[in-house]
């Protein structure tokens, strides 16, 4: 019984972290699906989302506003607005001028943007870890106190539910809305979509904005869950989310969700049953194995050579 509870506890830990990986991975996978480039600055957009949320929360606290739903909603809106504009600006400044050139050029531009944003936050906010207030505390307990009480905290539940809502909304948006349809068209054939009268520049911008907004949501959630932010934490999270996107099949939105969850669970099971030292070894070995046997990722479609 105790071992079973332990297993479920680790599973919950893994799913929590996995669902936030998925939220960030969406940004990588959508951008790749549409213009075939990897937006390495995406992790930084997520980090800026977390910082914005923190600034908003601190601001509200100094104003004396402590009503939790209001604080959360204001923090979320601020984070989403700032991150989305950041996503939009990054695309305008760093990618649009070099679009259509050799594949390496936007990639290098992306890495440059990532370094720039990291250092910008370094300068603007300092390099120290800043504590993030735990707004949502407490949780449910299962099992007796003297064996192993399994606990699900409210923040973990919040993370699941928010991720679920975001993913459902995104799926509906992509499959039902006009812009969503245009997104799918652009991802199938950018040139052709352009000829048929779709404003592809607008669609590409929209992709960046949507990805950044989801990353901002993840930033707020993870900030509260972990409890601190620093200018470098977008890099590691970005790397993990990118892995999740590749694992699930880059370019595929359900793939990003699946990849994120698998990666999160693999990490927590490794730390839980083996040792935390092997966490990254196992997740990246998993990635290599999947790429060896299914190079397009779990749910990716084989790429048709575009002429």
């Amino acid at each position, binding site marked *: 019984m105790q071992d079973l509870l*332990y297993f479920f*506890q*680790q599973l919950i*830990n*893994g799913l*929590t*972290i996995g669902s936030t990986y998925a939220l960030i991975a969406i940004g990588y996978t959508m951008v790749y699906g549409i213009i075939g480039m990897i937006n390495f600055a995406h992790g930084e957009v997520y980090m800026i989302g977390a910082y914005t949320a923190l600034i908003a929360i601190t601001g509200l606290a100094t104003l004396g506003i402590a009503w939790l739903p209001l604080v959360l909603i204001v923090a979320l809106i601020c984070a989403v607005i700032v991150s989305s504009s950041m996503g939009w600006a990054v695309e305008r400044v760093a990618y649009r001028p070099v679009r259509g050139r050799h594949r390496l050029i936007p990639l290098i531009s992306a890495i440059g943007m990532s370094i720039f944003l990291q250092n910008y936050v*370094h300068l603007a906010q300092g*390099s*120290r*870890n*800043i*504590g993030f207030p*735990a707004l949502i*505390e407490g*949780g449910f*307990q299962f099992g007796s106190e003297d064996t*192993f*009480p399994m*606990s699900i*905290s409210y*923040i973990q539940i919040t993370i699941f539910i928010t991720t679920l809502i975001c993913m459902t909304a995104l799926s509906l948006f992509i499959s039902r809305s006009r812009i969503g349809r245009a997104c799918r068209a652009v991802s199938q054939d950018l040139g052709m979509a352009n000829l048929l009268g779709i404003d592809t520049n607008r669609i590409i911008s929209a992709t960046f904005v949507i990805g950044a907004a989801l990353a901002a949501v993840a930033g707020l959630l*993870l900030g509260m869950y*972990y*409890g*601190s932010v*620093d200018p*470098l*934490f977008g890099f*590691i*999270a970005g790397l993990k989310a990118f892995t999740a996107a590749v694992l699930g099949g880059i370019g595929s939105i359900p793939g990003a969700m699946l990849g994120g969850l698998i990666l999160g669970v693999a*990490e*927590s099971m490794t*730390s*839980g049953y083996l*040792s*935390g*030292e092997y*966490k*990254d070894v196992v997740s990246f070995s998993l990635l290599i194995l999947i790429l060896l046997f299914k190079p397009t990722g779990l749910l990716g479609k084989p790429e048709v050579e575009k002429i």
Partner: protein
Amino acid sequence: MKTSVKKLATAVGASVALMAAGQAAAEIKVGIAGPMTGPVAQYGDMQFSGARMAIEQINAAGGVMGEDLVAVEVDDVCDPKQAVTVANRLVNEGVRYVVGHLCSSSTQPASDIYEDEGILMITPASTSPEITERGYELVFRTIGLDSMQGPVAGNYIASQGPERVAIVHDKQQYGEGIATAVRDTLQDAGIEIAMFEGITAGDKDFSSLVTKIKQADVDYVYYGGYHPELGLILRQARQSDVDAKFMGPEGVGNKDINTIAGEAAEGLLVTLPPSFDQKEENQELIAAFDAKGEDPSGPFVLTSYTAVQLIAEGIEAADSKDPFDVAQALRTGSFETPIGTVQYDKAGDMKSFEFVVYEWHSDGSKTPVN
């Protein structure tokens, strides 16, 4: 032929004399190498604050052999790669004495360069024993060793009679070194080590680790590493109702752990150098820090102050600015400093250095335990 050799020798001799004269007119450069940015920059603040104060006071009192000390400050971000870069920069600047580095993993590679280039280095903070184990002539420290600090922590935990202890470290030279020392002490005391495990510095998610700690049902958790990770572990452990007592080395003992862990930092045990700022004979110096609006209570402020003072007194005792002569003077002499009487053994370690167990509070204050 003979005369030309003679001429050459004279010319070289003259130019060497000229160079020496040129140097005599110059000031004495002291490199201060530590983290100004990065996750452990607050320790760097302590180091720079202490060293600057010492340089100011020594210059105000007439300098060293009539010359002023000049600080050359460099930022190593506590990153071993960066440490090598800044060490080379200090070499190029013509620095012959260095106060630094801070993190053991930075000090180790940088000290290779200093030893090769004939630069005297005194680290005010690195406690890894390996740094002074290599028979280097020019490497000293004004702090104790993990092999002293580890047993203090281990013996304290053992004295509380726990049944099972978990040990976690950050896989870095400092963290893993001290965690190993604590483990060995506890094993000698016959206490069961339920887990001994590394995490990755910079990680944010410790939910799996915390679950494991909870499952292991331990009384104490010892963490070898720095405060950003321990702060998060404490916070996440409290959220999961882990009731074990946490303990860490001086790398976790600064006020930033409170901003990360909040209430969860209450009751954390930390081994620290004794509070030199509380000592009677240091009050004049403490007042000087207060006048500048700086906080002298950090563990590395006065060790850095002492490092600069030892360089100055070493130069005077040796009556030479050659780092090898200064090193010789440091090994043979006995120096009165704010951290007590300093005497060095052959390796460059202080003959005695004490660590004390403190209990940390959620407002950032600390009280001695034993």
